[in-house]
């Protein structure tokens, strides 16, 4: 691994994160009504409001507030939740772990299913497999998560015929099987949409490899079709497949917001909706930052994996 490439990429991530903190701070501070107003409610007197603003430090210049906030974050202090009365780091931390379970299982499952599916569609291009997978992926891409989730609920969680629980969460260390049972429907919802996206993109990348000159050369050499695919096509399709998956991480992170809300999964998405509805600014800021960091890091990791798989991009 080229060290200077790694450092340059990490530097870029830091720059982007700095921009994200500014964006988040600006957006949340333009929100009508500040934290003091949120706590006291609409009936507060101007004197009370001013006093609480002073106590919370909201009367200071925005620039000072910004640097105060950022330096707190760098020390792991995200402030206090305005609504829950708990440190933001604690609330967001436990929600983060729950979300990562959900996203992790969904991503692992999707990777295992959709890459072979996309590859199969590309290899059997023009046959009925290809058509079926194509139709599936078009339908899947066009269904928003909330529709898929609702249909799955109707099918598998109706009161007379409950195959999987309609929502809720069990700590994985308490009862792992019950945890998995609760995870089935949310993971399936996330998975269907992602599978549609990823298998379609993998098919298109793999088709490109299949029509490349070296695959044709391998065929012309008289190699068996199996060898052409396993030795010449698949290894070269791996890097694009990783790229495709990392492209869809952002989609996954957006998807968990809706899915957690529907299935009452106590993760970042559900917490975010709660915080947005209650204008809990420190929580909104922390969740946005955490999601952006996860997104940036996963992109970085995938770039490093691609560089490892495909020596040509290492020094790019």
């Amino acid at each position, binding site marked *: 691994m080229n060290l200077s490439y790694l450092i340059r990429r990490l530097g870029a991530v830091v720059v982007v994160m700095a921009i994200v903190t*500014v964006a988040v701070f600006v957006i949340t501070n333009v929100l009508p009504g500040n934290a003091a107003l949120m706590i006291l409610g609409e009936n507060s007197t101007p004197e009370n409001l001013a006093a609480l603003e002073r106590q919370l430090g909201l009367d200071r210049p925005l620039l000072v507030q910004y640097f105060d906030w950022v330096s707190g974050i760098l020390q792991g202090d995200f402030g206090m939740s305005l609504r829950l009365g708990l440190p933001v780091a604690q609330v967001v931390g436990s929600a983060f772990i729950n979300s990562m379970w959900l996203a992790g299982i969904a991503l692992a499952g999707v990777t295992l299913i959709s890459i072979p599916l996309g590859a199969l569609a*590309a290899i059997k291009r023009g046959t009925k497999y290809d058509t079926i997978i*194509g139709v599936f992926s078009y339908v899947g*891409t066009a269904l928003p*998560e*909330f529709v898929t989730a609702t249909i799955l609920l109707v099918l598998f969680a*109706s009161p007379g015929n409950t195959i999987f629980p309609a929502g809720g969460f069990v700590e994985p260390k308490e009862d792992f099987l019950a945890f998995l049972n609760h995870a089935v429907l949310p993971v399936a919802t996330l998975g269907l949409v992602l599978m549609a996206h990823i298998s379609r993109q993998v*098919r298109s990348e793999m088709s490109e490899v299949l029509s490349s000159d070296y695959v044709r050369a391998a065929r012309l050499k008289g190699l068996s079709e199996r060898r052409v695919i396993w030795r010449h096509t698949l290894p070269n399709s791996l890097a694009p497949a990783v790229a495709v998956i990392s492209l869809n991480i952002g989609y996954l992170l957006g998807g968990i917001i*809706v899915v957690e809300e529907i299935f009452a999964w106590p993760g970042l998405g559900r917490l975010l909706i709660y915080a947005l509805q209650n204008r809990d600014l420190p929580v909104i800021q922390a969740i946005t930052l955490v999601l952006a960091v996860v997104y940036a890091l996963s992109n970085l990791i995938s770039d490093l994996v691609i560089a490892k798989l495909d020596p040509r991009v290492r020094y790019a």
Partner: protein
Amino acid sequence: MRKILSSPSGVVGVMLLTVVMSAAAFGPWLAPYDPQLFHAQNRLEGPSIAHWLGTDHYGRDMLSRILNGARSTVLFGLGATALGVCAGSIIGVVAGVEGGRTDSVIMRLLDGMLAMPELLFTLLIVTLLGGGTLQALLAVGVAFTPGMARIARSAVLSVRTREYVLAARARGESRAWIVLREVMPNAIGPIIVEATIRVSFAIMIGATLGFLGLGAQPPSTEWGLMVSEARQFMFRNPWGVIVPGIAIAMTAMGFNLFGDALRDAFDPKRSH
């Protein structure tokens, strides 16, 4: 157009879009009932002869509601995308044409915006603006801007050094003339293709916002809101969630298929 109709997916896309567009154009006239009229005797019914797609929890006719909601749904998708494409193209073209420091500052800012998942970004803006259809439209438009700007920029960069641009520059044409007459017409292809596909995303995000209660408000016939309202009764009458769900999927799929066919027509090399 003939190229688009030469692939089966293009044909399906055009067919779906025709259905959706006619619903958007003539929906209110085609609807058999007033979309807000309560048929108190026939609440939460499945499809029947009187109500082809069933009724909701107030006994309102679903077919009439879907037909009435088509216009706002399609207009939402087109409007939000148009906003994002216009703003994004201007930013992207400026970055691509100016180059140098302007370009790198703009691109870093866009990277920062793109570092947030799209739905999260949209949610933040909607909360900032307050819920409602227009606010949701603005939010989706703003959220689309950085992505569109990137595409516009790379489209501009790819034609910037072509001979006809260099020739125009050598002729001493003004910068505005070069951008509007030489660069833009040749860079517009990828922008249009991306925009078509984005309409389906805009419709899905708009429906999601309606579902979360941050977009259209009752008694609107917005499809996402219809799913959200029918969810309470989904086990008694699954049609209430399935019908608007299918309507959303059909519309999104229509724009997706059409966009893909458009891409293949513009760029035959990529048609696998």
